[in-house]
């Protein structure tokens, strides 16, 4: 088991490397990084001199691989002869430097660390809601298979996966925020602000979770060992809540983690809809300049994408470990 975790951790190295290259390339891929930097500083029509200055200031005149190494490590340091600004990105990603945001006039990392907790709170709340709702709905529908309970539950779940979740958020704003005036709909200034975005995000995820749980549960209920449990004369609730549920939960848990990337996507959208001061809003609105943001800030885009990719990689790792832990065949397998 520990050997497995270590090997799994080693596997992270090439993935991290790939992630860093992808994130680094975002800016060079735009084709004119110096213009992008000036745009973020509010310069709309830069002169040739301005562009040239930025080019040298940020080291964009150097070959790409040098730029990458420097972006990662901070080396080689600024070249005094070339009039490079050592302050722009001096310490490198590996030492936690994501660059400087001109939009906010702070280092990107500071802005990220400010937004990250908010995103985590929203995701955690949504995750809880989806877990509680999804598991409950899935198990009950499986147990009451082909009854109105099942049909209603699964109808709702199907509806849940068919609704665009930003539209669901929009309607929630309209109904609970504007018409009824029960709940705040913008920003984050207290727990009441959490309710609508978390519910919107949570219910959207609950639909697919309920569908997975139901099919996994039905699968398990068909197994021979469930019949064995009944033949032993066990109480029905022991059969269901001990034998069936534990077995059914293994694939659900795996899928749960496997679907975390979707949750990240959903969070980005929902944050933007509710103007939630998290990573998603930061990335889409302030970084990409969409959804009412003013202009792009590529350092924020890089930082935001990087953060989400890191979270995805971590989730994936946890998923593998959880799966190994839940399944005795692996836990006690040869070489485990």
């Amino acid at each position: 088991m520990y050997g497995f975790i270590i090997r799994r951790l080693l596997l992270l190295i090439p993935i991290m490397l790939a992630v860093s290259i992808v994130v680094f390339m975002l800016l060079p891929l735009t084709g004119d990084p110096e213009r992008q930097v000036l745009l973020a500083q509010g310069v709309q029509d830069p002169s040739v001199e301005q562009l040239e200055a930025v080019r040298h200031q940020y080291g964009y005149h150097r070959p790409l691989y040098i730029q990458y190494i420097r972006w990662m490590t901070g080396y080689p340091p600024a070249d005094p002869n070339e009039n490079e600004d050592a302050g722009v990105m001096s310490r490198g990603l590996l030492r936690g430097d994501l660059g400087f945001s001109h939009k906010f006039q702070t280092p990107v990392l500071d802005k990220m660390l400010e937004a990250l907790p908010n995103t985590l709170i929203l995701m955690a709340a949504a995750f809880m809601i989806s877990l509680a709702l999804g598991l409950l709905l899935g198990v009950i529908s499986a147990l009451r298979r082909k009854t109105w309970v099942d049909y209603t539950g699964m109808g709702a779940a199907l509806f849940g996966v068919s609704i665009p979740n930003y539209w669901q958020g929009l309607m929630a704003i309209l109904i609970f925020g504007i018409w009824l005036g029960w709940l705040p709909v913008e920003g984050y200034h207290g727990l009441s602000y959490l309710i609508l975005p978390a519910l919107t995000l949570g219910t959207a995820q609950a639909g697919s979770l309920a569908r997975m749980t139901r099919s996994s549960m039905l699968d398990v209920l068909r197994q021979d060992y469930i019949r064995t449990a009944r033949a032993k004369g066990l109480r029905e609730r022991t059969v269901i809540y001990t034998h069936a549920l534990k077995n059914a939960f293994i694939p659900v848990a795996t899928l749960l983690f496997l679907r975390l990337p979707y949750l990240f996507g959903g969070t980005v959208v929902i944050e933007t809809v509710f103007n939630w001061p998290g990573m998603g809003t930061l990335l889409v609105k302030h970084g990409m300049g969409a959804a009412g943001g003013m202009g792009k800030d590529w350092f924020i885009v890089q930082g935001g994408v990087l953060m989400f990719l890191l979270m995805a990689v971590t989730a994936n790792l946890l998923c593998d470990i959880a799966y190994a832990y839940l399944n005795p065949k692996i836990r006690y397998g040869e070489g485990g």
Partner: protein
Amino acid sequence: MLGKIRGHLGSTRRSPAFRYFKRDIRAKVGLAIVLLVISTAIFADFIAPYSPTEQHLDEAEQGPSWKYLMGTDWAGRDIFSRIVHGTRYALAIGILFVVVTASIGVPLGLLAGYRGGKTDSLIMRMVDATLAMPGLIIALAFVAVFGPGLYNVIIALAITGWAGYARLMRGQALAIKGEVYIEAARAIGEKDRTIVARYVLPNSISPLIVMVTMTLPAAILIASAMSYLGLGVMPPAPEWGAMLLQSTRNLADNPLKSVFPGVAIIVVVLGFNFLGDALRDAFDPRLRE
């Protein structure tokens, strides 16, 4: 137990999956919706009473009336006409996405699964890494770099979308490769190429169809979300997500114009999902009881 009983009912001409599918109410509803959407997309020019893009600023922000069934938007464009034309975008996104991702993922998956060994490890490393990535965020970054637009959205979604197909087909190829009839085929002297084409592929068609009917609506949903964020298909194109983006400006004053595009998306997505669910159940004999 039931399988045994069923086995003794004697043989029937039609495949049981088809018979089951035909009786499923979801299949009927789903098929009806999908056919409706397809014909609306084809005949959009005849169905829509007005141009979807022509502006009539003097008729802006009207509620539903006999003249404008769903009212008009801020530029005085008929929302109903825009919704009708929007089916083209929805279908184009869904179909193009499926075609692009499947044509990358299916061969790669078959190759990995049938070949095995190093080819398999290499492809599957890529697949696993891709699947672990948040697709929407990658897609948004792509559009931010290369600019919005229908085709860029599809490419952006395909960057991660192919991996699902590759994994499915790899699993299929792997499972089918272990089937006795594959060895039987080798025993009569079939070549590998023929085995993939005539044995592996035909036997993976059912899960592939199910996958198509499930990823197609998902692509429509995600693409509309991108448009809504302003990083997808851009206004004034009558794309439903883009329409919703514009409608939020004065949500409180004219909420109906936010309702219609949303309902349109739901109906289309539900239609495909109904179809997908019915197909999945029909193809999975364990669910057919």
